[in-house]
């Protein structure tokens, strides 16, 4: 539609109902949402995973994604790290007075498309409108409920010496795409955000590990029987791969050895990192997964990932070790080693 969001649209009256009906219902319509109840009844059968995420990205639209796609994918991916099939999402909007309707509709269309891609309905939500200047266009907070499809507990405590560390694809694309779109540093880069919902990828991996029936050593069969071969899953968003691995090493009280040559980094991402003094391994990703699996299941998992479009560049990038517990060591392209330490502050271009 034309026109702009008014303060009145946030005040619960007729304008509010029009906004909900004309924008949100049109984009997200499904039996549960259409009832427009304040709360929705769900009837999950298995164990539940529950998460929430707020999104304040600037600019709102960038190559490969937008705040809408990010809001859905981010929450779906958090649920996926618990091996949970997304059941339902809630989306709460904070909109700045004067925000253009057509932009809001475009964001909602993108959210709806991503939700369909992930096979999850948006069943409830809320909208507030704030005075002009009190927020930057629109902020979206999404909350998700998922049904866990495995029986064992994932997490750092499940990780063992010798486990394989697998990455579902290249790093740094999201951060560079947003940085280029923001234009602070006046460069354009041949990069698109990797923003995408990853439940399908994780579901395929769990299936592959569970169905390992090839005449492999019984170790795999036992380990994979209940998918216990899958130890740990996490999406490397802000702070990047390095932060995920550094936190895992600390929590698991184990060391991790990573091969720099095995980690895909696109030429454009590498050029931008050289230009501004960034380390690609600490850049944010919005469509990648780090998986730690039993060594016997590593090849199975990489193959399962590569069979999916979102996992075509998947690779084993390292291994868990009992050596140097709590520390992550990177073997460089030259066979030398250096420490991977968590980045400290915000990402800033440096001259030195």
């Amino acid at each position, binding site marked *: 539609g034309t026109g702009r969001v008014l303060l009145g649209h946030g005040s619960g009256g007729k304008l509010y109902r029009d906004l909900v009906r004309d924008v949100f219902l049109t984009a997200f319509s499904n039996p549960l949402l259409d009832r427009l109840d304040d709360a929705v009844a769900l009837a999950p059968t298995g164990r539940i995973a529950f998460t929430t995420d707020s999104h304040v990205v600037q600019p709102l639209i960038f190559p490969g994604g937008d705040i809408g796609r990010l809001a859905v994918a981010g929450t779906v991916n958090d649920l996926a790290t618990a091996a949970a099939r997304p059941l339902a999402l809630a989306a709460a909007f904070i909109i700045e007075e004067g925000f253009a309707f057509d932009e809001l509709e475009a964001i909602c269309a993108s959210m709806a498309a991503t939700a369909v891609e992930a096979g999850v309905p948006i069943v409830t939500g809320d909208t507030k409108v704030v005075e002009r200047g009190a927020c930057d266009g629109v902020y979206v907070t999404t909350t998700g409920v998922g049904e866990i499809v495995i029986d064992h507990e994932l997490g750092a405590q499940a990780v063992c010496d010798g486990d394989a560390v697998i990455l579902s694809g290249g790093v740094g694309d999201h951060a560079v795409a947003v940085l280029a779109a923001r234009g602070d*540093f*006046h460069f354009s880069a041949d990069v698109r955000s990797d923003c995408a919902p990853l439940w399908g990828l994780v579901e395929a991996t769990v299936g592959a590990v569970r169905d390992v029936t090839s005449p492999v050593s019984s170790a795999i069969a036992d380990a994979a029987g209940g998918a216990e071969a899958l130890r740990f899953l996490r999406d490397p968003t802000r702070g990047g791969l390095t932060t995920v691995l550094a936190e895992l090493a600390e929590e698991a009280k184990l060391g991790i050895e990573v091969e720099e040559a095995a980690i895909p980094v696109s030429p454009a991402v590498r050029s931008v990192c050289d230009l501004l003094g960034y380390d690609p391994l600490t850049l944010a990703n919005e469509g990648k997964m780090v998986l730690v699996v039993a060594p016997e299941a590593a090849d199975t998992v990489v193959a399962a990932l590569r069979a999916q479009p979102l996992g075509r560049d998947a690779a084993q990038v390292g291994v868990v070790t009992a050596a140097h517990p709590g*520390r992550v060591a990177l*073997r460089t392209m*030259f066979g030398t080693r250096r420490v991977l330490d968590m980045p400290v502050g915000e990402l*800033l271009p*440096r*001259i*030195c």
Partner: protein
Amino acid sequence: SVAASPAALRRLADDLFVEARAAAARRGTPDLTFMEVCGTHTMAIARYGLRDLLPPEVRLISGPGCPVCVTAMGDLDRVIALARLPAVTLTTFGDLIRVPASRSSLAAERAAGADVRVVYSARDAVEIAAAEPGRQVVFAGIGFETTAPTVAAALLEARTRGVANFSVLGLHKTMPLPLKALLELGETEIAGFLLPGHVSVVTGSAGYQFLARDFGVGGVVAGFEAHDVLRALLSLVRQATPAIEIEYARAVRPEGNLVAQGLLARVMEPCDADWRGLGVIPGSGLRLRGEFAALDAERRFAIHAGEPLEPAGCRCGEVLRGVLDPAECALFGARCTPEDPVGACMVSSEGACAARYRYRGLDD
């Protein structure tokens, strides 16, 4: 630029291994202490894990070449004081944002409401000033002879375009003199210098001749790829008589970039500069010439910064002089960490303390 293959690097490392042992024997010292002056070299050595390739006879220490680490507390406080002025938009490279001044940092000031913006280039600061005539846009001019000409060019552009609300706080420093100061202190046995690559792109290599001529210490201007560093160390080890050489010949000419030198000289002139850990070194800084007084933040604003407060127990000064290994500092790794830095050498991602902290534990 093409990175060397692992095999080529291995070959360089093998040669260095053999020849360093011979050189140490020739000098009659157990090992050779080389100083890598430039912070970007410190980062490259850490990033490529080059310490793994060095023979036991070669010890690399970090020198006063990181623009953040060498900025004296008093200068940092003046940047903070400027950022606090309501009319001022303080623009800076990212390097300065987290550096602890006496009582604050730019990050803390921004959180408290100061208009502090990170720019990639001094030109961007001029654009901000042109776009926001109501603001007093000040650029914190840190960096050595590589960066100073870019700030000088931005000043010339601002003057030509009549961007009257732009000014620079000139904190630039020049390279050869602190090396002279270091050698005159004679505290540490420096067998040779890995000389800064990109400063030398501008200055050329002539300015370092005094190192070999007057102090008998050789130096090699090095690039920033892993093979550049190893080739430069090999050249140092092979020097029978101390000399100044250029390994980074693809970018550095002996005479340097004369246009950049000329443009810099038009806008800035040498002055005394206060270096953290080295104190005031006459003629080692750059300030804006009188002709550019109108664009000099020093003269445009009354800057009240108060007494500088060095953090108790911080020994960054000795680290910068290469006489103290960061791990020997009492604050290192406990009170002073990358998350909660006390000294500038821990804040800068390539400060000697930050690089040393990242290596703790893996091989200790």
